[in-house]
Structures are given as structure tokens and as C-alpha cells.
């Protein structure tokens, strides 16, 4: 029973994080970052994201046209730098607005429940 509750929590947490991470990554990539630096930047904002989630997410967002990337040499190593594409710049404000509405509704529900 305990294990089942834990699994359920993990699944819901995963679903909850999925959409939030997309917004966080897009927002962070308004300025250019390479993968490892992006992960560190998100961690500095208390948003932990493991490599197995971040890199596939970056590729998916690039395939969707929201990000652009290029390989470039920095500190004698080839790194792949990502930044928001023009389409990404158009989508991000809408996503943030959606997030704010959702957050405000949730705050209202939680406030009413107190």
C-alpha cells in the first residue's frame, strides 16, 4: 500500500513537472546556454533537472522549432549552444500567461480550502 502511494505520488509529480520544466527551459534559454551550463543555471534557481530529462527535452523542443542550436568551441571543447528561436519567442509569453492563470486559479482554490 505504502509503495503504491509512493508510485502514485511519483507519477503525478512527474506529470506536474513535465509542463513546468518546458516553461523553465524555454525561459532560461532567452539567453544562450550549453547543456551543462543550462542545468547549472536551473539548479541555481532551485530547479533540479537530471541530464536524462534535460537533453531529450532540448532535442524535442528543437525538433518542435522552439529552440535553435549550434556546435561551437569554447574552452577548447566543442559544446552545443541552445537559444530560443523566433517561434519560441512567440510561444513563451503565451505559455507564461497560461501558467500565471493556472497558478492564480490554484492559489484561489488552495486559499478557499483553508
Amino acid at each position, binding site marked *: 500500500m505504502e509503495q503504491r502511494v509512493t508510485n502514485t505520488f511519483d507519477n503525478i509529480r512527474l506529470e506536474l513537472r513535465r509542463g513546468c520544466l518546458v516553461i523553465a527551459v524555454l525561459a532560461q534559454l532567452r539567453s544562450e546556454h*550549453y*547543456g*551543462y*551550463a543550462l*542545468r547549472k543555471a536551473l539548479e541555481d534557481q532551485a530547479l533540479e533537472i*537530471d*541530464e*536524462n*530529462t534535460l*537533453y*531529450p527535452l532540448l*532535442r524535442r523542443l528543437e525538433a518542435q522549432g522552439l529552440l535553435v542550436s549550434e*556546435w561551437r568551441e569554447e574552452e577548447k*571543447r*566543442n*559544446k*552545443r549552444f541552445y537559444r530560443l528561436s523566433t517561434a519560441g519567442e512567440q510561444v513563451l509569453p503565451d505559455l507564461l500567461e497560461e501558467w500565471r492563470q493556472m497558478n492564480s486559479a490554484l492559489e484561489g482554490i488552495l486559499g478557499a480550502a483553508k
Partner: protein
Amino acid sequence: MLTSQDDLLARYLHAVQFWLPKSQQRDIIAELAEDLHSQLAERPLTDDEFVALLKKRGSPMQVAAGYLPDQRLINPAMMPVYRLVLKITLLWVMLPLLVIVFAGPLLTSAHPGEVIVGFWAEAWRTVFTVVGIVTVVFALFDRYNVKIRGLEDWNPRKLPRVPTHSEIAARWNHLAGCIFGMIAAIFWVYFLWQRTAFSFPGGVRIILGPFWKFVYWPVLVITLTSASADLLAFLYPCWAQVRSRVRIALDACLLIIAAIVLRAGNWIEIDAPHLSPHDLAAVMTWVNLSIQISLVATALIACLDALIEVRRLLRPSGRPHTPIAGVSL
């Protein structure tokens, strides 16, 4: 010379690469390697710490899986239809199998053990084949984005009506109809499977007319289809109307078969050495007359049954059954 950590890293990346699609291997591995090098550049690790780091990242297959597109065999939205189609197809295939491969031969065979083993093997083969075919069809639907009419363009007015109380109660009649149909089919298979004559003590033989082998399969199919429709109506009372339509179609088929058999005449011949030709002719006349009356009765019963089903379709009686407690309709 490679250090131990270089070797571990090369092996790890190679193992991840194995599971990746060829077109993306180079790019993904380069990025993964860069990420690990960046992490190592922050702080040198001992070999054990490096092993722990790789273990924390996950197994090579797990890492590679994250880059693969979400793949599925069947669209989750189609799952309810898939399960329903699978159940109905299995039902329609297994019922005839039960009668033709199991019950019929079990009654006639001198080696029932062989029949049971044969049926067991055939049943599994059939289940795997049906599941395989239905799954492949639905997988193709998903792959080529085939839309099933009625699922996309649905209309609340065209949803099946809620079964009435009398229809819910009638499901037990449908179960009885299914059992009766199965027994009838088993007897049909048992008595007429590749049979041309019946022998009785005293050298008496009843020889079946040639048309029996032409009506053998149609009658068996009608009986089994009727039993399957009854079973469906028992399992899903809201499909009572589907059962009624199937019954009407089967009654029409039965009527046609009865008419063909009636026109054929000479249904049987009797070979009885101890009877005089005069007595034999009298017996023949009576037997053929009995068959004729039975056939006419069958046709009349089919007509009556069809009328009852038409009436059921046109005038559902009683108030709807409430499917959810506390919800009035």
C-alpha cells in the same frame, strides 16, 4: 594510454550509442560526452566516484530510451474499441471452434483425450491468431491515422438508448437462447458431420437426400451466429437491438433455406429389407410428410420470430433502466 576513467567513459558512451537510432548517434553521444567532461572539469573524481556518477545517470539503455520518440502499438484513445473488437472477435471465433472442434468430435470420437488435446492446441493457436490480426489492424489504423467513422463524428442523438428494465430482465432469456443454440449446433455436428445415412438394428437404413450436405454448413452458421448474438445480448444488454437485427437477418436466411429444402423434396430414402414394398412406401410417405410439416413449421416459426423482433425494435417497452444509482432518467 587510456586512463581507467577514460576507458569507463568510452565503454559507457559506446553502450548508450548501441541503443540509439543511427542517424542521431553522433550528435547525442557528442553532447553526452561533453556534459560528462564538463562535470569532471568541475572537480576531479576518484574511479569509484566516477562509477557512482555513471550509475546515477542510469543504464545505457535507459539513457538512450529518453531520446527515442514515444512509440506505441495502439492509440490509447482506441483502446476501448480495440478491447471490444477483440472480445467480440474471440467470441465469434471460439464458439464455432468449441462446437466443431471440441463438442461435436468429443461425442463421436473413440479417443476423447486426443480431441481435448487437439482442441486445446487449436484454441491457443486461434486465440494467438485473432489477437495478432486484430492488434495488427489497430496498429495499422494508428500508423496511418485512420479515423473510425462514428468515433470522431458522433452524435448524442445516435447513442444507443438505455436498455429498458424488460430488456435487462430478458438477458437471461438470451443466455438460455445461447445455451440452446450451442446444444443444437453440437447435435447438428454430431448427427450430420459427413454422414449420408443412419443405420438401425435389423438392417434398417435411413439414407439422407443429397441436398443435406448443401444445407449442412448454412444451418450450422445460422445456429452459431444466433447463439453468438444471444451471448452478446446477454453480456451487453444495451445491444439487444443489435441482437434483434441479427435475428431478423437469420430468420430470413432460415426461411430461404426452408423454402429450398421444401422445393427439393425426396428428403430421405429408407432401406428396410424386412418390409414389403407397400409398407415401405407407406412409411416413406409418412416420414416425408413429417419432414414437410417440420419444414413448414420451421418457416412459420422463423416468420413469427422475425415479427416479434421487428416489434421489439419498433416499440421498446418499459421505462429505461437507471445505469447509475441516484440518477433519475
